[in-house]
């Protein structure tokens, strides 16, 4: 009898923890319900990030929300519970039934969201994407954080500058299928064909799968395989962090650059030999969100339709022109990537 009671109690306790766990990890933002109010006449603008629990996404949504609210709109922020296309599809469905005016999405998959987003556009919702795009048929336009070419150019110039113009260097990427990574690497190789970079030798492109453990293995392997290596370029936030830690702990002469989060990299950025990364690049996610918001507003107001050549004013950010994205659709490029160096890292590390 005692045992039965005990096991019953335990079962209830388990169910209770389960329920509590699900409830709190659901991740939908608090203002999801409140924003249903169509009666106020306010337009509602939704942003769908990649997943909950990522400071980068959080900052993007923050910038978006700030602009929408300043312009007098209603903002809905949705974080899917997992970084998958499935999770985003169900979020999009619920936004369609809520009858929002626009959806801006940072896509987890380029093609898998097409059906859901086309349904949204059929329902009269203005669909744009930011940060990570969907295919041309699923969007009206795309807010690109930095042009592929600009990133390739900036990174190659960093490689040239830090190596002193010659020597061996390697790339540490995320996964071998990551579309943006591969596009940037291609762009770098394109830039490298110029005479100026002829003394640089790209010895390997290694893949750390955005896992600290694997990235560490790959970095150590690069150091062991190429004793004359001068620089590693990691255009991924997890990879650059793992590589920075390895290089700095080893006291290695090999330097590092790439794309990284200032808060994660603050410890490693510096001009002297004690720091592994002289400088690196990234865009400002808050600005990505803000430009996304202005784009959504312009789409909803009918100022733009997402066609090439249209221009609009993004508040204090200035004038933007919609350009051809090269994939059959259009895009709006935020600008060149932002440089994080010893002089400004302290100011940025607290931002994101």
């Amino acid at each position, binding site marked *: 009898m005692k045992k039965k009671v005990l096991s019953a109690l335990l079962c209830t306790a*388990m169910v209770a923890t389960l329920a509590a766990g699900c409830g709190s990890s659901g991740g939908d933002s608090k203002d999801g319900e409140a924003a249903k109010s169509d009666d106020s006449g306010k337009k509602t603008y939704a942003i769908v990030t990649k997943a909950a629990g990522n400071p980068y996404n959080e900052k993007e949504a923050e910038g978006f929300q700030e602009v929408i609210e300043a312009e007098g709109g209603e903002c809905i922020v949705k974080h899917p519970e997992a970084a998958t296309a499935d999770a985003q599809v169900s979020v999009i469905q619920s936004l369609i039934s809520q009858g929002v005016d626009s959806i801006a999405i940072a896509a987890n998959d380029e093609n898998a969201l097409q059906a859901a987003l086309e349904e949204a556009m059929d329902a009269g919702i203005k669909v744009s994407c930011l940060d990570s795009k969907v295919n041309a048929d699923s969007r009206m336009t795309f807010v690109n954080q930095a042009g592929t070419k600009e990133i390739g150019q900036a990174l190659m110039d960093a490689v040239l500058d830090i190596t002193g113009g010659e020597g061996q260097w390697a790339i540490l990427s995320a996964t071998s299928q990551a579309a943006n990574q591969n596009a940037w690497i291609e762009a770098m190789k394109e830039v490298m064909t110029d005479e100026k970079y002829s003394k640089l030798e790209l010895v390997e492109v290694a893949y750390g799968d955005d896992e600290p453990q694997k990235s560490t293995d790959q970095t150590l392997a690069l150091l*062991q395989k190429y004793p004359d290596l001068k620089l590693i370029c990691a255009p991924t936030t997890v990879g650059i962090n793992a590589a920075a830690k390895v290089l700095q702990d080893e006291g290695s002469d090999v330097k590092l650059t790439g794309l990284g989060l200032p808060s994660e990299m603050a*410890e490693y950025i510096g001009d002297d030999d004690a720091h592994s990364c002289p400088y690196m690049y990234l865009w400002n996610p808050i600005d990505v969100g803000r430009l996304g918001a202005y784009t959504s507003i312009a789409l909803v107001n009918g100022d733009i339709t997402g066609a090439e050549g249209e221009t609009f004013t993004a508040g204090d950010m200035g004038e933007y022109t919609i350009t051809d994205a090269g994939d059959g659709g259009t895009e709006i490029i935020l600008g060149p990537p932002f440089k994080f160096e010893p002089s400004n890292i302290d100011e940025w590390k607290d931002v994101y």
Partner: protein
Amino acid sequence: MKENKSILKKITGSREASLLIVLIILCIAITAKSPSFMTFKSITDMLKNNVVIMIMALGMLGVLLVGGIDISVASVLGFTGMIVGMLMKYEVVTSTPLLFVIAVAIGLVCGCVTGLVIAYGKVLPIIATMGFMYIYRGLAYVISNSEWASAENLGTFKDFALGKVLGLNNVIWVMIIIYVIFFIVMKWTKIGRKVYAVGSNREAAAISGISTKRIDVLVYTVMGTLSGLCGALAVSIYASAQPNMLYAKEMDVIAACVIGGVSMQGGRGSVVGAFLGSLILAIIAKALPLVGIESIAQNTVKGIIIMAVIILNVLAQRAMDRSNLKGREM
């Protein structure tokens, strides 16, 4: 009788011996292609980068021995790691030893809850731990509140994984100490023998007066405790706490045990096996980029090597079983 015993001894010895042979062949093959592999620094780097999997493999050994499985271990690690990261970031607790104690205590509670649900709630281990896998990972996200703790926030805590005693990194010492403790407990103590007894024949163990439920709770609690410890270790080693830390690495932990000859049905497996298994896994991960296998093909090659090692191991086991039977007939 005496002869029988010596045969038994040979069997338990040679099962690990087959792994050791694989290990040596692997090392020779890698060194031939990349001579720098067999240096002290290269090996300690590898151990340091795999300490977490190696320690958790011990907990998994206990769980698999009683015929269970725990797929929530990486989530417990993420949960405790995130707690440590956040405590440090907001300077609530900054003492390294205290942070370790906190991580271990939380891991212990997590594991104990899992064990109680499995043993007394009579939920299948894979189902229960699947639930907890989501719960603990979810809690890691809740704790993180969309923030990460980075190298700069982790101040002195990350120095633990840089410090050395007698030329060996602290985290490697932690692993060695835990392995020694487990080796002694599993081989020479009552508790160790009880775990094996429950795993090889639950009914018989119950009849002989062993509280099988208590043993179940114990192994999951130990598993959780080690996962908690590893959460703190991982944060210190990688100088970063993110809610998705070591996501899906429970499979590597289970793979390490399976490679090491731990039976998924329970009752069979050893500390040495878990050690060799996780070491083989670590060597494969370390060697693949070194010997110049195309990045895209690395996972496939990893899988093939794992399969080859396991098949070899199973064949060796069968041959041993057969010779064992022969011995009895005589």
